[in-house]
């Protein structure tokens, strides 16, 4: 069938329109994107407050998953959804108080290095405590049923619950930052720390709470995502860089930007696979032919086979062309 590629090829045969494929990619992209948002919201909050790009952010996502695994084995999933992020938040706050604060005076590069080393240490500590193999952290059976079926795929109640939770987080954060006194202080501490200090607020303590809170948000992502993606020591390093990409594209320090970018990356990686656009014609423009071995590798490349690399490409282009990201109010 001419003009049909990838998923559309299969669906064309069933008479499904391209619009439907698009809708389908959009919906699945949204589901995945909102998981990314749970991580990127905490990261962007920490960055906008403290100017620290927390390399270890995904490590708190991992801690959330492991804590949830242990707690849900003992007393169930719902307590885990509360206590696991709380535990990660406390650990985050302690690390800020006794680690990051010490490094703060050496500048941003030292802070970045500290969190880089921290990510390494947390991964090793997780291996030390839970071992190196996967942990069977599974979706709670109370939500492991099909809620609805669309285009032949079942969507479990759990996935919808994840979506609703992250939407809830966005709304709550937005309200917190723009409509409450705490939010006002936080925003003020960001732009005028001395002034806020002079007004009698303890700025370092605000930083500590913010860092802990951000880590807790990441851990919520871990509680909800650990049973979908698999709970293992490498989960942080696999997800970490992509979260960075999200907040850089969205614009550092912009909550709305993080939301849009998360959904964008989610939809992009989905659509890249669904449409599976061949790159052959693109490389042909530059005279690459399949006659040589390398040419053959390039011509056979499709958007699906490189989908998870595309976000990095976009990040680099974004940093070169518009370093403040989509919605950022200042440069990276």
């Amino acid at each position, binding site marked *: 069938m001419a003009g049909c590629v990838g998923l559309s090829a299969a669906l064309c045969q069933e008479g499904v329109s391209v619009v439907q494929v698009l809708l389908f990619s959009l919906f699945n992209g949204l589901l995945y994107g909102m998981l990314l948002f749970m991580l990127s919201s905490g990261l962007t909050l920490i960055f906008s407050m403290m100017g620290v790009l927390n390399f270890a952010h995904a490590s708190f996502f991992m801690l959330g998953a492991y804590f949830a695994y242990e707690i849900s084995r003992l007393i169930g999933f719902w307590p885990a959804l509360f206590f696991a992020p709380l535990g990660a938040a406390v650990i985050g706050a302690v690390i800020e108080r006794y680690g990051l604060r010490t490094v703060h005076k050496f500048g941003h590069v030292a802070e970045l290095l500290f969190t880089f080393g921290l990510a390494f*240490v947390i991964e090793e500590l997780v291996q*030390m405590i839970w071992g190196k193999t996967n942990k069977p952290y599974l979706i709670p059976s109370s939500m492991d049923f099909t809620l609805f079926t669309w285009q032949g795929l079942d969507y479990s109640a759990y996935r919808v619950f994840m979506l609703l939770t992250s939407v809830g987080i966005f709304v709550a954060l937005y309200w917190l930052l723009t409509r409450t006194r705490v939010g006002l202080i936080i925003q003020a501490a960001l732009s005028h720390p001395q002034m806020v200090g002079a007004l009698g607020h303890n700025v370092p303590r605000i930083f500590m709470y913010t860092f802990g809170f951000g880590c807790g948000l990441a851990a919520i992502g871990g509680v909800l995502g650990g049973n979908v993606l698999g709970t293992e020591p490498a989960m942080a390093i696999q997800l970490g*860089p992509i979260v960075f990409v999200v907040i850089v594209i969205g614009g550092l320090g912009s909550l709305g930007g993080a939301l849009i970018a998360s959904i964008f990356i989610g939809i992009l990686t989905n659509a890249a696979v669904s449409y599976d656009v061949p790159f052959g014609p693109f490389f042909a423009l530059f005279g690459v032919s399949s006659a040589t071995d390398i040419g053959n590798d390039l011509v056979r490349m499709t958007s699906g086979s490189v989908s998870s690399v595309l976000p*990095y490409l976009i990040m680099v282009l974004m940093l070169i062309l518009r370093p403040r990201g989509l919605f950022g109010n200042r440069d990276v």
Partner: protein
Amino acid sequence: MSMKGLLNNYGVWMVAALIILLVPIPFGSGFALSIASQMTIAIVFALAYNMLLGQGGMLSFGHAIFFGLAGYFTIHYLNWMGQGVVSYFPVSLLPLLGGLVSMVLGVLIGLVSTRRAGTTFAMISLGFGEMVTALTLIIVSFFNGEEGIQGDRWVGPEPLGITFGSDVQVYYLAGAWCFAAAVAMYAITRTPFGRMCNAVRDNPERAQFVGYNTQRVRWLAFTLSAFFSGIAGTLHALVFEHVGFETVDIARSGFVLFMVYIGGTGTFLGPVLGAVLITWLTSILSNFTEAWYLYFGIIFVTIVMYAPGGLAGLIFMHEPIWLTDPRLLRRLLWPYALGLASVLVALVGIIGEMEMIYHLSNDITGEFVMNLYGFDISLRNTVPWVICAIIGAIGLALCRKSFPLVAQHWHQVMHEARERVLQ
């Protein structure tokens, strides 16, 4: 003699050359020689990386791409020579060629990545690192995925009958290039360009105001660093006759960052120290403990927190003292010994506990028997846990007593040194 005076003195370089020359005599075994070769490569790479981080203030999470891509080029070039596709080029000069390849890449990537320093640069380097790593897996015909590609460095008639068939010969090749590259990189720090780099690192606005094009300075530093990284990558390919995707991936970029930072970014000797020490540790620590990555991470974080100058920084902290009167150092000896001893006692206890936890969670046999410090112990028994805890507690208590002592003596000696200088 001051740090700079030290390195300007030809004697130091001659000692370095002598060490490189003499290593194969006692360390003749194949394994030891390969560690020694690896050290020389690590030194070149670490120094090149420090041109970015230490001198230019640019933190890169993807510098291994210049190391690895030069390696891929080298192996392909060796194979092409073997097949007669390209004309013969002396193997001993291949590092130059590999360096130039990386330099060209450095010019291209640097053009877009060095426009800004700081976090932007770090993020772009991360992006490039991830993309190149993915490409090495995807473009199989050139990179051959995780298996990588193999070559034979014994391809042609080398002058004086040197074929690089034996490990000793290739060690000397690496050693000679290491020496030459180190001299060249040191010379660069002494040029006006080297000073310009530092100015751009410390205060870009002012540097720009004075009339320097900060972006061009960073770009040049980046390109030069890529060149020397390429030399290191070529040597790596020649020593192992293999290159795979692990030469370009983020783990290697992270590792060179560890080396440089632990050694010390502020001085020329720091990266050398870090490279030698870390290479040695990685080759031996894994014989004793499975948890060595963890100790590594902890050492790194500790240094970032408490000794941002790295090990070399700690050593050169004493520079004012020995410039004034080296005899003053003797007064620091016993407080240092005391402090070190308490740290060691604490470490014995803490590491013991950590090793036991590690074994407990990774023991799939369920027997929970292990060997700790030469003792066969059962983890079901509480005695080893208690003993380690007690040792650790004693150590920490000793630290609390001895650290103020060290600080006190340090201040006294520094004070006296200052007094003497002022007199």
